[in-house]
């Protein structure tokens, strides 16, 4: 039976797509007719020719007949399709609740999952547009005793030259170093982020210039005319986006350089503004006298066929040779790790994104499950309708087609709105992403393969589940639905009811998992925000001031800039206090070996140290614990005094009072403008300030007067009475009043700086997860409500009987609530188990929050139960306000 029906459907489909077959059939049919007529005519006595002509005349113009028949085909098909369409619209309009909910579910599911997956795909899977980027590798040296800690990936010129020249595993290898580039424009200096590139850099990345050309080997030779390449963003923001500037000269860091090319938008390597060709030599001296030598980051492209293990082995050989020449740069026992560029850049973010991927899949699943439920519920209402229509002669194909049209209308509306949500959602998410967390090259746009996938899945669900009533009618089981009183069967079969319940249970469980995830991330984020920084960051304006290296090398030169600047800034209206410093919390300065006079110890002692002015501590409200801060005279005279933090005091002074004791900060002797005999007298102890980020324990720290040396980048901090940003322009003016050739960089409020460094990443993760959880919750609420409402409506008759037999309104209420809560409780129970299992995946993202945090889990359970009760309220009220007599008559 079904075979024949399917066969007919197949025929129909084939017929519409093969008009030649249709034409040939028609020809055959008419030819048969003519043949029969001709035969009859001949039998009646005509000769062959006359018989044929007579037959043709009787039929009429054969072309005309064919035309008319073909017209009929087209018109009738269109006509019935149109009828299906209007019928479907009417049917959907009659049940606005169902229609709106179905479309909303579809749209939400498609929109949310597409938007978020677009972000993931763009960031995680394809962050780099460079051909062969999947085989870009960096080289890291890790201490064998501490392999998991961050390794060293920076090298000096001779080192990386050895790696590049002696290896056998990279077919192209380059290095790059960052440099502050001061660019004179208008009345003052701008600071650009410069990237020094070694030969073959642009060949390595494989992207041609947008305008002009990329650097060629000749540009790297030492005697070549100075050139540079501009990055897209800097071109737009600092150079007006004008393509005609190619070939012009600009003064960068005091040198006139010719602009030879502008890179396309997706070339964001190192977030560089300008790219300067450099051919490094093995010469050991600092690249620019008086400045720290540049640190080079190595990158190589693995030869085809070479594995990571082979590369590691090969490079380890070179590393071992180098360790003998530069023993101080290598730990006594070390391991060489080859890390792919994608891993290095995406790193931590990868876990968040993978989790989000899982959540996206869950969301889409919930959506489809909801939709399936809605359509099945509707299907049972319509069983009778289709049985009647079938009995009246509608073919199964017609019924199926009509249902498909209905589902199509739902799909198209839901899909269209879903795309809208996806586009909007994507823009909002992109706005939220903290800028430093993802590579500059990523371009996040609506991902069409994903959209297509989500649309396909979500659109086929209504089509598949909408077909159920037609297929049931196809089973020729017309008697039962027709015989049953009421609008159809009572709640569908028992099996159907169980399927519906199972779907809701799964939804609740999935939603539970998402909510727990969001809750844990939220608690972790709140804990992070609760970390005491050890200072007050409000109302502080900060800026870094890179000084042109030719004129600022010694301490005296440095002071000649900062002392007048500090005085000028202090006298500005609205300024409470001013200080200079070499580092900004929550990160703390230069690492150094330290010694304490008179103390003997076996292991190495190290600390971080900063250079600052005497007001530094008061600007940031850092508490004094013992002794005193250094004073103005001591700073002016560059006296060797030091302030240490509590951790330093506890760890290296133990029970001895540190005040008056002497410590040695060894690395100061290695500075370009070195400090001889770097022993300092401790004059004060301050409370701990976060110096290794928010999550690492505080390291021992030393503060020294900034006037001791001219090396190291510095900046100023300004505590203001009012909004710090209102003093930006004054700050800039004062800086340029002291020296026109100094640029300002990283200007902003202290709070914003800390936010970007520490909170932005976890905040993003938490916000994303919360969006998910909320969308999931909305979907679940819709799902529970619709199913409970439907089930209650089905049982109105039954409830009426019960009430007529003596049940009270409360009993009716209990019945409805019981239905809803039963399903939700089972869902919560399963969700509990699922999220306990999955929590371990989340654990790496959490800080000071247990992945099994009972508060979060209980909270979510209660929330879901509450939602369940809320979803039952409306159906329950309808149930309790039933008049028994009306209900009994309710068909």
């Amino acid at each position: 039976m079904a075979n024949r029906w399917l066969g007919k459907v197949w025929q129909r489909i084939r017929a519409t797509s093969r008009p030649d077959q249709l034409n040939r059939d028609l020809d055959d049919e008419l030819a048969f007719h003519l043949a029969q007529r001709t035969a009859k005519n001949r039998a009646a006595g005509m000769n062959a020719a006359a018989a044929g002509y007579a037959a043709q005349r009787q039929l009429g113009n054969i072309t005309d007949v064919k035309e008319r028949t073909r017209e009929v085909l087209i018109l009738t098909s269109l006509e019935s399709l149109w009828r299906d369409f209007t019928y479907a619209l009417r049917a959907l309009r009659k049940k606005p609740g169902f229609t709106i909910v179905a479309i909303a579910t579809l749209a939400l599911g498609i929109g949310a999952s597409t938007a978020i997956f677009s972000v993931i795909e763009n960031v995680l899977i394809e962050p780099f547009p460079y051909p062969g980027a999947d085989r870009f590798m960096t080289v890291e040296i890790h201490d064998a005793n501490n392999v998991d800690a961050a390794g060293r990936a920076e090298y000096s010129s001779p080192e990386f030259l050895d790696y590049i020249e002696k290896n056998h595993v990279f077919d192209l290898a380059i290095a790059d170093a960052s440099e502050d580039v001061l660019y004179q424009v208008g009345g003052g200096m701008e600071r650009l982020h410069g990237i020094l590139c070694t030969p073959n850099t642009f060949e390595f990345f494989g992207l041609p210039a947008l305008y002009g050309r990329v650097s060629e080997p000749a540009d790297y030779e030492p005697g070549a005319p100075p050139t540079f390449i501009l990055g897209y963003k800097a071109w737009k923001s600092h150079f007006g986006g004008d393509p005609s500037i190619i070939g012009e000269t600009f003064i960068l860091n005091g040198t006139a350089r010719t602009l030879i090319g502008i890179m396309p938008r997706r070339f964001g390597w190192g977030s560089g503004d300008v790219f300067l060709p450099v051919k490094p030599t093995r010469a050991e001296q600092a690249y620019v006298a008086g400045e720290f030598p540049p640190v080079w980051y190595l990158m190589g492209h693995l030869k085809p066929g070479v594995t990571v293990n082979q590369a590691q082995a090969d490079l380890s050989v070179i590393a071992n040779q180098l360790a003998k020449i530069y023993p101080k740069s290598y730990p006594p026992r070390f391991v060489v790790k080859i890390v792919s560029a994608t891993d290095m850049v995406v790193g931590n973010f990868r876990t968040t994104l993978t989790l989000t991927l899982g959540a996206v899949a869950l969301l889409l699943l919930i959506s489809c499950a909801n939709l399936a439920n809605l359509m099945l519920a509707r299907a049972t209402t319509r069983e009778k309708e289709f049985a009647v229509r079938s009995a009246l002669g509608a073919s199964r194909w017609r019924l199926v087609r009509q249902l498909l049209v209905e589902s199509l209308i739902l799909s198209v509306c839901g899909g269209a709105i879903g795309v809208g949500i996806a586009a909007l959602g994507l823009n909002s998410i992109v706005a939220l992403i903290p800028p430093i967390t993802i590579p500059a090259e990523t371009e996040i746009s609506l991902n069409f393969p994903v959209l297509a996938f989500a649309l396909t899945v979500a659109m086929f669900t209504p089509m598949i589940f909408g077909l159920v009533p037609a297929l049931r009618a196809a089973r020729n089981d017309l008697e039962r639905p027709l015989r049953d009183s009421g609008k159809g069967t009572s709640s569908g079969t028992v099996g159907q009811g169980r399927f519906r319940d199972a779907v809701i249970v799964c939804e609740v469980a999935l939603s539970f998992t998402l909510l727990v995830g969001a809750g844990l991330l939220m608690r972790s984020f709140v804990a992070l925000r609760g970390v005491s920084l050890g200072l007050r960051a409000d109302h502080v304006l900060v800026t870094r001031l890179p000084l042109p290296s030719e004129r600022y090398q010694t301490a005296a030169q440095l002071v000649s800039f900062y002392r007048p600047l500090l005085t000028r800034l202090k006298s500005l209206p609205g300024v409470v206090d001013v200080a200079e410093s070499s580092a900004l919390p929550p990160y703390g300065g230069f690492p150094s070996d330290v010694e304490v006079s008179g103390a003997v110890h076996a292991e190495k002692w190290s600390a971080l140290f900063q250079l600052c002015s005497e007001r530094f501590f008061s600007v940031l409200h850092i508490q004094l614990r013992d002794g005193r801060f250094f004073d103005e005279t001591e700073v002016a005279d560059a006296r060797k005094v030091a302030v240490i933090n509590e951790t330093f005091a506890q760890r290296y002074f133990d029970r001895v009072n540190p005040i008056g004791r002497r410590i040695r900060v060894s690395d100061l002797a290695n500075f370009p403008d070195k400090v001889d005999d770097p022993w300092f007298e401790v004059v004060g102890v301050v409370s701990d300030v976060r110096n290794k980020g928010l999550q690492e324990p505080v390291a021992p720290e030393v503060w020294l007067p900034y006037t001791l040396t001219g090396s190291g980048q510095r900046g100023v901090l300004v505590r203001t009475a009012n909004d710090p940003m209102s003093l930006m322009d004054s700050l800039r003016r004062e800086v340029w009043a002291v020296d026109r050739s100094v640029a300002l960089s990283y200007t902003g409020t202290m709070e914003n700086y800390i936010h970007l460094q520490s909170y932005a990443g976890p905040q993003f993760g938490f916000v994303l997860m919360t969006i998910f959880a909320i969308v999931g919750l909305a979907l679940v609420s819709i799902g529970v409500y619709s199913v409970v409402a439907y089930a209650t409506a089905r049982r109105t008759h039954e409830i009426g009987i019960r009430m007529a037999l003596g049940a009270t309104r409360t009993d009716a209420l209990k019945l409805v609530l019981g239905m809803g809560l039963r399903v939700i409780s089972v869902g919560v129970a399963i969700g509990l188990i699922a999220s306990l299992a999955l929590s371990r995946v989340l654990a790496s993202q959490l800080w000071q929050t247990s992945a099994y945090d009972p508060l979060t889990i209980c909270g979510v359970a209660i929330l879901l139960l509450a939602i369940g009760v809320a979803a039952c309220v409306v159906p329950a009220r309808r149930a309790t306000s039933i008049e028994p007599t009306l209900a009994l008559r309710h068909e």
Partner: protein
Amino acid sequence: MTDKKDDLLQGTLDLLILKSLARGPMHGYGVAEWIHESSQDVLRVEEGALYPALHRLELRGLLSAEWGVSDNNRRAKFYALTTAGKKQLMQEAEYWHRMSGAIARILQTA
């Protein structure tokens, strides 16, 4: 005026086709012949209109069609009434009877 007449004619043709197939499946030629014979030569179907009508009825689901072999071993398309077709035939026939009876009565009154 011509439209109405066409409609009437079309409706009539449909009815005749349905009736002709009430006795069993037949091909288009057979239907034409049967109408001619059964009406005792009064009605001649415009054969050019027959085939569009047959296809239209098939599309509306009142007829089903299958390719088969005729008595003289030729390939021909056979049409048969569906359940819906049977029902339509009954309704149309009943309507016709009523209409023609009413008209006859009106014409009888002087």
